[in-house]
């Protein structure tokens, strides 16, 4: 019998180790971009604006690498494109159980360079993340994931749009370019 118990525990431990070591790669998704940093971010912003009919607005554009560089340390460029849709955030924020998920708002897409000189886009695996928080959140995050996939569809035949320098923390009343959640 003790062998069965030990096997049971070993199974739990094995799963824990595997899960601990691989969960991160499931939660975040990385894509290579054919464009430079600014153009990639600007094209994502333009796509987000095109999804305005689903409540999406730009919430901010941050450059954390600049702040780090100013302090004398070296990081390759990073731009954080922030967006929010009240269609989705409204559902989550209205629910006492889900409101704590506001910690993940606004939705952030990161654009960065790596040591190979190429530009990459990082997104959260919203659909998978949503599944961890129950049916209601899963349904909302599934829709977010679909929209997020649209944000990353680029048409190279379209000219590069200008990068919109959105101030973070827009309150929703400042027009389509500055509002957020």
């Amino acid at each position, binding site marked *: 019998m003790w062998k069965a118990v030990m*096997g049971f*525990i070993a199974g739990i431990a094995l799963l824990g180790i595997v899960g601990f070591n691989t969960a991160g790669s499931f939660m975040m998704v990385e894509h290579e971009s054919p464009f430079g940093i600014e153009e990639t971010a600007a094209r994502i912003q333009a796509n987000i604006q095109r999804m305005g009919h689903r409540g999406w607005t730009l919430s901010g554009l941050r450059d954390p690498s600049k702040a780090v560089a100013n302090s004398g340390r070296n990081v390759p460029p990073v731009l954080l494109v922030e967006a929010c849709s009240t269609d989705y955030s409204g559902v989550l924020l209205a629910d006492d159980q889900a409101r704590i998920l506001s910690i993940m708002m606004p939705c952030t897409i990161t654009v960065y360079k790596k040591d190979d000189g190429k530009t990459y886009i990082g997104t959260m695996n919203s659909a998978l993340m949503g599944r961890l928080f129950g049916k209601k959140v899963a349904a909302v995050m599934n829709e977010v994931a679909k929209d997020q996939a649209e944000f990353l569809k680029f048409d190279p035949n379209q000219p590069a749009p200008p990068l919109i320098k959105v101030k973070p923390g827009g309150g929703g009343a400042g027009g389509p370019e500055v509002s957020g959640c």
Partner: protein
Amino acid sequence: MFTIDRVIAPVLGIAFALALAVSSPVIATATPLAEAEKGAVAEIEQAIEGAVVKVAGEDEKAAAESIQSVPAPKQVAVEEPVEEKSKSTADHSKFEELDIDFKSGPQVTKACLKCHTEAAKQIHKTKHWSWEYINPDTGQKLGKKHVINNFCTSVKSNNTFCSACHIGYGWADDSFDFTAEANVDCLVCHDTTGTYKKLPGLSGHPNYETIEWPPHSGKFRPPTDLKQVAQNVGPTSRKTCGTCHFYGGGGDAVKHGDLDSSLTNPGRYLDVHMDSKGLNFTCSTCHVTDEHEVSGSRYGPTAADEKGVLVPGSQDPRNPTTCVACHGNTPHPDKAAKLNDHTRKLACQTCHIPAYARSTLQTKMSWDWSTAGKLDEQGHRIQLKNSAGKVVYDSKKGNFTYDRYVVPEYQWFNGKVNYTLFGDKVSEDSVVKINEFQGDADDPEARIWPVRVFRGKQMYDKGLQTLAVLHTAGKDDAAFWGNYDWDKAMEVGMRTAGSEYSGELGFVSTEMSWPITHMVSPKEDALACESCHTDGGRLAGIDGIYLPARDRMPLLDMIGFGVALLALIGVLIHGGIRVILAKRED
């Protein structure tokens, strides 16, 4: 075989853990912090506070230029750059000779030469003056006066604009007097006021009258206060050298990639030597100057220096601008002695400049002249911008591409460079190397260098099969930037260069190489071993050497895999025998 204890129990365990994970709330319920945890939180809060204060202390202008960064608390005072007091024994504002309302640059020079009697004679011998360099190895006549590059292409026929970066006054055409001492411009290098500017189109003069600048902008630049500038001269600085060298090729960060206005006041990470709050090197700290001749030139570069440290003040004619001149050939400490072996094959810059254009400024990566000349329906000039606001199409110049934080290309380089000059045969069938770095793995003088390769498409005379000289800028009716007439501009340009335009314009693809040597990172940001010692790493294209982890020796691989396979077989046999014996005992 499939007993409950060996198989089913672990599977049940995994299933149980999965079920528990799925059904449990991911969000932890609020629990009071233990004392130890509170301490840890306080430490983190302090660390964050410290980081925010550091951010707040940075240069306001840089912060304003950046896209939204971490907001800093307003009550923290912004550090103002400390202005260094001059240590000179002469206060030029007290000189009677300079207490004059100067009407022109040459008038200032005459006043300077009353005391600095030999200065103009020295300048006349320099490349900054002649824009000419005879390569002792190849005999090629180089320098700005002769080279055709793949940026603005050629100085010839465009002097009134290009000579904004000449260390003289009045070089408009071939009649310029290179022997006149008063034509030397002292102020462009020695201005400390930051108000002295030589604008394109004025043949190397600053503006003496109010001028609309940029043209048609509605902004007006008052006349240069020459007296004010002359009374405040001082040593050269990153700013004065940068007036030309940061803006080469027609704008900030365009030409070099590792030289741009971000180096006027750089942080440590951008350039560990020029760090304005650290070592604060000026250009002349490395580019040691002797009788106004500035050392270190891309026309006669030093790729490797076996002799090591160059003692300051020595009469050794070696190039003092190399890394080796200060750091020697074994710069790494004993604990990292293996790195010193690398100096036999690698330039220091290869590891210590992991990328160029590392500020927020984008550098130009390519220039396609073949698309220039398109106008809108009203016949007006077109300008299109990219996402960062940089012009990617201009009717005057064609198409551009940009990038920042650019990983260099790598080449063997022994310091010798061959140029394709005016008159050399070129064709559309192959990429024309404007300059070609020499050297290979067997050359003891060669090292692997980081290189910026600027790619372009530019004019050539199809009939003569030579790179073309285009008359781009000027107030006459033949200048391309005024009339967009290729043939007219080619006729004047080619004639000025000493040839007759065949009437057949073509475009050739070109490459121009620039050794990367500025924007030196702090040692902690140098390339790691795996940047090169890996498949597809940075040195993937370098041949002639065996690079562990990049290269493979089939025999060695076979032996290694063979040993591993034999070991595995041994383990299986051993384990199998033990299992069988154990069953027999049962």
